[in-house]
């Protein structure tokens, strides 16, 4: 029975692993930290798997556990952006005023998103994953109205970071 459970879990996770990678992409800033968070999310998913009843999709359930791990459960400080990196980002923003090329813009955007706090990152993540406000509010435990308000604030904050 246990072997069956293990097999079913590993197979599904292997198939949907990009969700975990994407959480790591937003919450970490180097490969080592990425791998470390990936592993912790995998462990938390596995621990929670016996309670997964299949009444929601495996992938939907993964969003919740993945974000919970990144925001609340995970405990390694090295993954956080240190101040020197933030300084470099700000320096770059000042030195290179808004570049029109898309690639440059994207690079700055990713850097800006990394400067958001954990909750704001979660909103951005769910937004990027095309989740509606109902699902965002259910995942974070806030009301739909507040999710909307906060999302608008995040957009404004990103604009401010990008155009200081």
């Amino acid at each position: 029975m246990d072997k069956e459970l293990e097999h079913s879990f590993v197979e599904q996770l292997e198939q949907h692993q990009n969700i975990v990678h994407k959480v790591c992409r937003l919450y970490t800033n180097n490969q080592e930290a990425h791998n470390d968070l990936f592993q912790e999310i995998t462990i938390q998913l596995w621990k929670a798997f016996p309670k997964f009843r299949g009444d929601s999709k495996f992938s939907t359930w993964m969003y919740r556990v993945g974000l919970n791990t990144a925001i609340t459960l995970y405990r390694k400080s090295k993954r956080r952006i240190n101040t020197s990196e933030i300084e470099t980002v700000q320096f770059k923003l000042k030195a290179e005023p808004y570049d029109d090329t898309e690639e440059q813009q994207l690079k700055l955007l990713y850097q800006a998103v990394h400067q958001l706090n954990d909750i704001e990152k979660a909103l951005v993540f769910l937004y990027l994953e095309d989740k509606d406000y109902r699902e965002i509010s259910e995942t974070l435990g806030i009301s739909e109205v507040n999710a909307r308000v906060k999302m608008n604030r995040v957009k404004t904050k990103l604009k401010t970071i990008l155009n200081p």
Partner: protein
Amino acid sequence: MDELELLKKDWKKEDANFPKVSYNEIYKMILKKSSSIVKWIFVISLLEFVFWTLIAFTFKDSKGMKDFNELDTNYIMIPLTIIGYAVLAYFFYLFFKNYRTISATDNAKVLMENILKTRRTVKNYVAFNLIFLVIGSVAGLYIQFDQNPQIVSMAHKAAADGNLFVFYARIILITSVFLVGAIAILLFFYWLIYGILLKRLNRNYKELKKLEV
């Protein structure tokens, strides 16, 4: 174009850039131990329970306590001991009950609340022990003043010299300084351990709470 829309467009393409973790690698990961804060809180909490139980036993067998027990102390010590163990059992039960409700599948806010609740249980237990320590010290002091032949004779001598107030004040002051010092050291360690452990959780919880106002 909206910044996030631009990001979203690129985000969908990201899939191809991630390293592919194989079936076997995932399998190996699920055999590893978690290093989540819940595990740390669990371990530290158990250590706190052990710490206070050990303190009780160490004091019980110390020479000072043996001398103390030769005095007539049962009327105070027996109720205090019973209360101490009953409260330990109660907090232990609460702690496990709260711990079991922590689930990574809850929404972020409920998860944080459940972790904080578990932590609060242990905090209350520690607060209880500190209060218990103060009550125990006051009771101990009272018995010593009342029954310890050495102290009683010293008190008589001090009374004869007209220094009774200074004599009592000195003993009470020394005991108080010792107690305050011990409590301060303990509180400092809790502040340090939980401060580090729960810094991010508290920050994120506040951020979520702020959204509700």
